[in-house]
């Protein structure tokens, strides 16, 4: 029976709550992924949820952040949703590869701007949509060999 199973997880937009999502995600992913694969996926989701809290809600707590996990035999679809300020269009497409800073020029050592690039590096596809007041960062990962559902 090839059926997708979906789990929705929600937290309040508070940095301390991200860990709960992260732990729950890892627990679910153990069904289908190796430890190294889980680590990558987990990193991507933590970055996405951090962004929702920090940018969509400007760090304000008490708002809705949701992770949805669709588990199918051959793929994993993950969506991070918020109802805050949407990301500017084309922001995601503008993400470029990591450039190492110049050790001798401290100005090239940026303190931020790595989140979206990390997400793109860890997932197979990444798409963003703002619709009806809900913003969704949709990510997917193809499941190949090894552990299966």
């Amino acid at each position: 029976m090839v059926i997708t199973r979906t789990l929705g997880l929600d937290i309040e937009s508070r940095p301390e709550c991200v860990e709960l999502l992260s732990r729950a995600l890892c627990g679910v992913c153990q069904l289908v992924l190796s430890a190294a694969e889980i680590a990558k996926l987990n990193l991507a989701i933590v970055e996405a949820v951090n962004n929702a809290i920090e940018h969509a809600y400007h760090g304000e707590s008490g708002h809705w952040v949701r992770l949805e996990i669709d588990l199918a035999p051959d793929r994993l679809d993950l969506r991070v949703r918020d109802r805050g300020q949407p990301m500017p269009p084309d922001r995601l497409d503008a993400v470029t590869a990591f450039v190492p800073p110049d050790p001798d020029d401290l100005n090239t050592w940026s303190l931020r701007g790595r989140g979206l690039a990390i997400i793109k590096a860890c997932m197979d596809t990444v798409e963003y949509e703002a619709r009806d007041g809900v913003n969704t960062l949709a990510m997917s990962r193809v499941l190949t060999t090894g552990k299966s559902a």
Partner: protein
Amino acid sequence: MVLTHRTIEGIDIVALAGRLVMADAPQIRQSLLTTVEQGNGKLILDLAQVSFMDSSGLSVLVSAFKAARAKGGDVALLHLNSTVRSLIELTRLQQVFPIFDDEATALARLR
């Protein structure tokens, strides 16, 4: 996140333990900047016990690095476990951070 601090020959050695993530970043950043400010700007960060790090944690490392360099010092990273190493390599910072597997070598570098 637990932070342990000691000093050897004017070099600050700070061991971090736990998750170095957005929730903890402001506090850890402040603590490291204070250490750099009050010391010689020579800092070893022992990351062996860091169980997970996100880009906010990375930002803390960069902050400490910039502060130390601005003071004529340097930051050395010690004992990267696989989680931390993956993130640092993914973001290509392994090319610029001084990274060591043993404390003696890290101390020698900063001395």
